[in-house]
């Protein structure tokens, strides 16, 4: 079938309203008679609340209610483990600065703001533990006494082959210790929304969310209400990147509406958004890898420790991902992985673009680049000898499903960047002349891969409804796609509309995607794991096929409306399995996406400042449903990867927060981005994907940081194993070296 809509860079479905400023984000909603709420936040990273005195705040005119733990029907929530209190009451513990004591609701935002400062809270401070390596020890202060006698939330073991034999076979062994920092999602739209009771009496929330149907389960649990008594509406989302997979405001808005029975609006300011919400996990990664002189990997030993922060969030599934990707996209016969995630009094850590696949490349790609140097082999060539292919046995013992495109991404990136290949021998280009005598240039390469969809035996599913309106002659006049798939900005709705148009054989302009409102649309799973094009795309195609069949019948009956529904399960094509407790063997993931990047940098030897001049970025997306949107993901992925490499670090000291706003937390501006950016789209189809498509959004960020780190080494000879590679860190490393 030749595709007419799929593969075209049609305008995004919401672009026109966005450029006009008409598209409503959660802070843009206002309701008749609405009140305003503000949170009273914890002031200690670890303490027992001894007294909460509301008297002064309550006395302030205009204060309508102050909610405390006593007002929460079931005071617990959590996306994976319900270990988080909604509000912390007297006698209970705060475990980080994002814990909440009370919510003040008032007639105006100003009064609410004033009143929250009048709430007096007394605390008995408790010992604080912020380094997960300390928190793992048997005598460490416990963060969650109620959850047993250790702060270790999860330990995953992988045992493959015989690493002693593997290291004995190695001619070179590289050992390093890598650290990655806490990273702030820094979506531009701070948390906001309105909670109210709808016309049917349902507790309703308007907010940005990645998985509204899961929020609904948590809210119904918290309020002890049946599921059909709660509702969530997701308007435009101002970025999310994993940060809205957990609830940071949704449940609070629901609680406010439930308690006061009036509309309540709440908007976090940037400081609240930075200080009081989750982050990407910092990792401590001890890597030891061996390879033969011929460049074959023989053994790997890895220890990965992740800082879960105060509550579990998705730390366990994030760690599970990391362990499965610990070896990178390489074949290795002998491996040992011990991965831990540990509670501390730091910020809660959670999903963020890559979901545990973003930290390991910092280690595994630096290992490859160091091995290449030690072997005197080109880094592309070394990779080509070890990269996964269709059917290769992965770290977890499973064969890789068809569509492994990582070699192709590397080949295309390397050739574009000027590498030469002859009979499997790869020759790196020179980096060119620096722009000033005190600068040095370097070029670095990295790969990465990641799962698409939910893994480890989880029943990943997505349900879609397609409704057709037929004209007099029975032709499709309009199609409406209904599914609970959030579009955080990357274009999920556009891609799904294109897929629907293609499957129905109609123009893209005739397709609409319904607003995500849980009272209207079915559960499509989370907007995460780069899964909507693959998972929801598969559901939409099948719902469209069903609708097309029904259309024939409708025409015969003289009807003008058709509706069809389909629930797609990932396991129907690729069942996944959980880790074996002892050896970790499993078939972890439904599908995968792959990426390779090359960075050209210039380092100022006087200051250590790195400038990224050019990035070549290839991603294997199976099939680019909308090539310009894929390029947009690549640009955004490189942006985040560049920040990860050079500037971004959410800093805490003893559980207190030092980076509170954009003037202290530096995401790349346009001036920080490489002047030249070459996105390359690779299409090695996944036979189970819609039109061969895989996922896009996360893979584009994986190789950036290690490619830049490798380029810095190429330029000035130092390895930065502890991100971010700030000017100071690079400069210091250069001093130590000389």
């Amino acid at each position, binding site marked *: 079938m030749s595709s007419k809509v799929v593969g075209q*860079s049609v*305008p*995004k479905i*919401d*672009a*026109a309203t*966005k*450029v*006009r*400023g*008409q*598209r*409503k*984000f959660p*802070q*843009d909603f206002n309701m008749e008679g609405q009140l305003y709420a503000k949170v009273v936040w914890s002031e200690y990273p670890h303490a027992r609340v001894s007294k909460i005195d509301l008297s002064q705040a309550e006395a302030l005119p205009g204060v309508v209610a102050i909610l405390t733990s006593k007002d929460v029907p079931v005071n617990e929530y959590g996306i994976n483990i319900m270990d988080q209190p909604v509000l912390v009451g007297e006698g209970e513990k705060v475990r980080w600065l994002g814990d909440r004591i009370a919510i003040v609701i008032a007639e105006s935002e100003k009064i609410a703001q004033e009143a929250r400062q009048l709430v007096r809270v007394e605390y008995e401070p408790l010992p604080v533990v912020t380094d997960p390596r300390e928190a793992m020890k048997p005598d460490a202060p416990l963060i969650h006494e109620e959850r047993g006698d250790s702060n270790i939330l999860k330990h995953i073991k992988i045992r493959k082959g015989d690493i002693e034999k593997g290291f004995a076979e190695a001619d070179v062994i590289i050992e390093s210790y890598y650290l990655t920092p806490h990273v702030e*999602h*820094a*979506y*531009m*739209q*701070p948390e906001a929304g309105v909670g109210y009771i709808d016309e049917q009496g349902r507790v309703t929330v308007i907010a940005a969310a990645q998985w509204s149907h899961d929020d609904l389960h948590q809210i119904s649990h918290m309020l002890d209400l049946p599921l059909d008594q709660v509702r969530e509406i997701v308007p*435009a*989302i*101002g*970025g*999310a*990147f994993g940060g809205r997979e957990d609830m940071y405001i949704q449940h609070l808005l629901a609680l406010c509406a439930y308690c006061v029975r009036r509309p309540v609006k709440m908007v976090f*300011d*940037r400081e609240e958004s930075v200080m009081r919400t989750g982050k990407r996990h910092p990792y401590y990664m001890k890597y030891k890898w061996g390879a033969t002189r011929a460049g074959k990997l023989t053994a790997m030993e890895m220890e990965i420790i992740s800082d879960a922060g105060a509550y579990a969030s998705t730390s366990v599934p994030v760690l599970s991902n990391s362990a499965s990707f610990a070896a990178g996209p390489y074949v290795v016969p002998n491996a040992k992985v011990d991965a831990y995630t540990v509670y501390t009094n730091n910020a809660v850590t959670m999903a963020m673009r890559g979901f545990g696949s973003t930290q390991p490349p910092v280690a595994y790609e630096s290992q490859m680049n160091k091995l290449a140097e030690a072997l005197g082999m080109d880094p592309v060539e070394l990779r080509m000898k070890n990269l996964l292919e269709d059917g290769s046995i992965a770290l977890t013992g499973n064969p890789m499903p068809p569509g492994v495109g990582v070699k192709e991404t590397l080949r295309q990136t390397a050739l574009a960047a000027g590498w030469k290949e002859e009979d499997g021998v790869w020759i790196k280009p020179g980096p060119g002349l620096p722009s000033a005598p005190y600068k040095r240039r370097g070029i670095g390469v990295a790969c990465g891969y990641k799962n698409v969809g939910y893994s480890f035996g989880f029943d990943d599913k997505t349900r879609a409804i397609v409704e057709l309106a037929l004209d007099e002659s029975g032709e499709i006049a309009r199609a409406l796609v209904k599914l609970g798939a959030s579009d*955080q*900005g*990357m*274009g999920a709705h556009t891609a799904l509309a294109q897929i629907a148009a293609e499957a129905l054989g109609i123009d893209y302009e005739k397709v609409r995607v319904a607003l995500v409102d849980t009272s209207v649309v079915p559960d499509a799973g989370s907007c995460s794991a780069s899964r909507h094009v693959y998972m929801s795309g598969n559901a939409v195609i099948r719902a469209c096929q069903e609708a097309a069949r029904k259309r024939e019948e409708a025409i015969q009956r003289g009807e003008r409306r058709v509706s069809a529904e389909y629930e797609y399960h990932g396991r129907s094509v690729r069942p996944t399995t959980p880790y074996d407790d002892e050896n970790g063997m499993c078939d972890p993931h439904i599908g995968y996406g792959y990426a390779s990047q090359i960075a050209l940098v210039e380092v100022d030897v006087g200051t250590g400042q790195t400038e990224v001049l050019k990035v070549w970025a290839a991603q294997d997306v199976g099939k680019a449903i*909308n090539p*310009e*949107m894929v*390029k*947009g993901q*690549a*640009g*955004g*992925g*490189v*942006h*985040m990867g560049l920040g990860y490499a050079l500037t971004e670090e959410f800093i805490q000291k003893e559980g207190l927060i030092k980076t509170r*706003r*954009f*003037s202290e937390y530096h*995401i790349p*501006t*346009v*001036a920080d*981005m490489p*002047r030249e*950016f070459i996105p390359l789209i690779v299409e090695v189809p996944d036979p189970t994907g819609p039109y061969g498509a895989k996922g896009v959004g996360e893979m584009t960020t994986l190789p950036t940081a290690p490619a830049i780190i490798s380029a810095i080494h190429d330029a000035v000879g130092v390895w930065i194993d502890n991100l971010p590679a700030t000017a100071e860190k690079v400069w210091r490393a250069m001093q130590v070296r000389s």
Partner: protein
Amino acid sequence: MLTLKMFLNGQEVSVDVEPGELLADVLRDKLGLIGTKISCGEGECGACTVLVDGKAVDSCLYPVLKAQGREVITIEGLGQDNRLDTIQQAFVDKTAPQCGYCIPGMVISAKALLDENPHPTRKEIEEGISGNLCRCTGYYQIIEAIELACERLAEEGGTG
């Protein structure tokens, strides 16, 4: 309360304000112009950019009383009825908006730039949006959109 008069998107408006209020809040909360976004509230991100007498300003820091008698243009002031203006159309055509939260500020910064300098270099475009943060795009398609808008404006013979 004081009554402030300004020329907003081509029309004279009067609005009651408190002395300490900021332009962004008045636009959003009192005048219902929600296209102007607030993201950092400290002049770091440019999401709140509007034009005051043709200059791009961060409305989250701009005391509303300073706007007295001035001409203010927000994103709602661009284009006509159902027609996008040239810059907006170029943003659509280049797939520039992802989440779109930074986009009204970006479009206004681009307008400020092109009104003053119809033929900017790539570097001048970068400078023109250097005060606007975007977390989604990496800025490339935004730059391409501004370049496309330049070309089209040159063909049209002015900033429509």
